[in-house]
């Protein structure tokens, strides 16, 4: 306890009063500080001494990336850093665009209650870990993440999704767009009968959409959309592409038929057994989402190793790509798993590209499949996905080539702001780098 008895003393009193006055002044001065954090000034950052993988051309050796504010200003070989710029020396490492995860689950969201935007959580651990592993933009889908032992669940029709940037600690700038993509689940095994129903639904939705548009043009009361038609109307409104999972050739063909009759932007997910229709997909410009590897826990002793097209999972991405189909790689598992199984979840997204290379893809194309292609599919290819002038300054500094199994992200920038530094974060700074 502070032992201080009261005493009266004029000088002391004056000193106390004087001190109080000064404190008051300081408090008033502090009160002038605005309530909101100030907008960051247009700072200039130059990352130098790196091999720059732009995803928009060949690698640039001894390259420099200059960012101004939240945008990329310039990318080139041996550019001089502008005066006053904060210079970051990559020390011979690599610079790449931030990775764009076409699908992620259970990340950046603290429980959904109607939408994702109001439940965003930029402090979540899985978000921080994903950022530390190179993911700067992700399409978060409202599906449960079953973790290591569980079966991954496909998104149901109408599943919610949102495109977010992994701006850890900052809610501002986190949401890019909600919804991210439309999701539609093809009906199950009895393809014939259910296909009829699906066709019928698309037909009715198409008519309903026509009616909606007429009502809008004539400024009359629009007809109410029956709830069972809503997913189909949303798809045909085509404000964003629709992801449909279809693994077999039969399913894919049926889907393409529907799409021909009722046009919408389709993204085909996991056409693992449908390589036979790859040429149709290419000519119809239907992009695909593919995993570069098989699956865990597969005690399948009957299915032959190589399928009828001579393909195995790691070869699929390159096989589709070679036929002109746009391929975006899916993460091995959509979420971040901390239970110990290394390299088998969202954090190994850059290594999925390495597996695609193992399967025959070029390194450049594989990097595109986890950056600019997903960005384009998400309709944000003008903003992210490659290191080009005018795009968002979302970039990664790596200690090694990002497809190297020993590669770690040293620094991650989003919108020109440094959000992650390996040496300052507890996550990976204890790992002796190779």
């Amino acid at each position: 306890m502070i032992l201080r008895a009261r005493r009266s003393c004029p000088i002391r009193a004056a000193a106390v009063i004087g001190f109080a006055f000064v404190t008051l002044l300081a408090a008033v001065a502090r009160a002038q500080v605005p309530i909101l954090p100030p907008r960051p000034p247009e700072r200039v950052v130059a990352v130098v001494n790196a091999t720059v993988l732009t995803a928009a051309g060949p690698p640039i050796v001894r390259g420099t990336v200059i960012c101004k504010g939240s945008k990329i200003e310039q990318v080139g070989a041996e550019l001089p850093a502008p005066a006053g710029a904060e210079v970051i020396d990559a020390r011979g490492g690599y610079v790449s665009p931030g990775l764009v995860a076409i699908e992620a689950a259970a990340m950046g969201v603290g429980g959904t209650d109607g939408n994702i935007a109001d439940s965003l959580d930029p402090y979540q651990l899985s978000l921080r870990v994903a950022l530390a592993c190179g993911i700067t933009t992700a399409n978060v889908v409202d599906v449960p993440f079953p973790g290591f032992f569980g079966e991954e669940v496909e998104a149901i029709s109408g599943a919610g999704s949102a495109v977010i940037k992994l701006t850890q600690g900052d809610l501002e700038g986190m949401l890019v767009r909600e919804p991210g993509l439309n999701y539609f689940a093809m009906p199950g095994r009895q393809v014939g009968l259910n296909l009829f129903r699906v066709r019928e639904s698309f037909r009715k939705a198409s008519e309903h959409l026509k009616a909606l548009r007429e009502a809008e043009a004539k400024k009359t009361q629009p007809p109410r959309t029956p709830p069972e038609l809503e997913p189909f109307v949303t798809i045909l409104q085509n404000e964003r592409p629709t992801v449909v999972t279809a693994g077999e050739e039969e399913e894919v063909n049926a889907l393409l038929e529907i799409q021909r009759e009722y046009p919408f932007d389709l993204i085909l997910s996991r056409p693992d057994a449908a390589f036979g229709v790859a040429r149709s997909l290419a000519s119809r410009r239907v992009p695909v989402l593919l995993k570069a590897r098989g699956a865990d826990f597969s005690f399948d002793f009957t299915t032959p190793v190589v399928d009828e097209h001579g393909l195995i999972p790691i070869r699929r991405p390159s096989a589709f790509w070679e036929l002109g189909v746009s391929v975006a790689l899916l993460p091995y598992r959509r979420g971040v798993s901390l239970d110990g199984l290394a390299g088998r979840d969202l954090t190994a997204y850059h290594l999925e590209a390495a597996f695609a290379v193992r399967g025959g893809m070029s390194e450049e194309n594989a990097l595109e499949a986890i950056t600019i292609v997903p960005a384009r599919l998400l309709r944000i290819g003008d903003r992210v996905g490659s290191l080009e002038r005018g795009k968002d300054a979302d970039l990664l500094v790596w200690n090694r080539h990002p497809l190297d199994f020993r590669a770690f992200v040293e620094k991650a920038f989003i919108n020109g702001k440094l959000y992650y530094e390996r040496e300052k974060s507890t996550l990976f700074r204890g790992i002796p780098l190779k």
Partner: protein
Amino acid sequence: MSPTGRPLAGCFSAAVLLASFGLAAARAEPARNFAILNGKVVTVTQGVHANGAVLVSGGKIERVIPEAGADYRPAGYEVIDARGLWVLPGFVDLHSHVGGTDINDMVYPVNPGLRVLDNIVPQNPLLQKAQAGGVTTILFIPGSGTNMSGFGTLMKTAGSTIDEVVVRFPGALKIAQGGNPERRGGDLGRDRLGMNWLIRNALEEGKRYTEAWDAYERNPQSPRPPTNPRLEYFRGLFHRAYPVVVHTQGYQLVLATIRILHDEMKLRVVIDHGEFDGGELGPEVAARGVMVMNGPRQFRFDNERGAFVGTAQRWYEGGVKEVGVNTDSAVVPEEELSYQAAMAVRFGLDEEVALRGVTISGARAVGIEDRVGSIEAGKDADIVLWTGDPFDVRNHVVLTMVNGKVAYDSRREARRF
């Protein structure tokens, strides 16, 4: 997916037919001589030869020639061109469940009489993929559904009959210390008290059986003890002819393993998981000479510090200088053993240690280092050609040779991995 591999199914039936009729035809194929030339030979135990040659005959490695020269062409040997490729020994995985089907019989709490030998399915699709992952030897063990699930077999991933693939049976006893065999039913074995009892009781029984037979063999005049197929394989176990591989992880459980199995029962022990914070027991484990095949989890997230920790590296730091990795296939597909090692390296383990960990260390742990685990004259010709560093995910296997026979050649058949 609809199975379309009819030719392969045909192969299965043929093999079964041949084996069951005891026809030696499939085994009587004469061994061919091979010369693997112009590759970077990584022997694991005797250095790296930038342009070495490996001669194979009679199913064995005949000779390793360190600097063979670009024009070296030995007569009588078929050439396998390894230009631009790395030549490595086949990998060894001591925790595999893909040698065949049916790995967990869980009626009794302990099952020392069971053996995964007769249920081997040679050349099954999972093994074919394993070959394309550079894995040539596996310890095929029963699962961890019970505390003692049976004896496993050391086998090659290529070969058409069981006899052809078996390297040694018993390969090892499989004990699951905990973390799966917990019975839900309320009988003994619901928690560690019961499970430790089951393990110790069964081992004690086996020990007495062994001692009885040892006594009889020293003095053949004495009465012959009864034969008990349930306990028969304990004899080799207590003679330390083969080890016990233990599904054990976490500090407390690993401690129980080394105290009971190594200290009390004096067995050869291989820790076949060792994950979570088991690595904190490095000094104790190292002091006992117990080996660790770490995995499949290669990292641990330390919640208190918010840090990723490499589990294999932790063992190494604690003094366990020979650390391997496993897949626990098909938890992780067998062909991704090299990826597991890559992850161990990523999280801190020295790359050379990791390479030994999937080759000679595993072989030594189960006592077959005279046959596999490195490229040395006299060992089995289990040789794999890679496009480069096997841990670099971008590289792949070009050719796999097992027992001197080419089991997989991606230059002549479709890629399997």
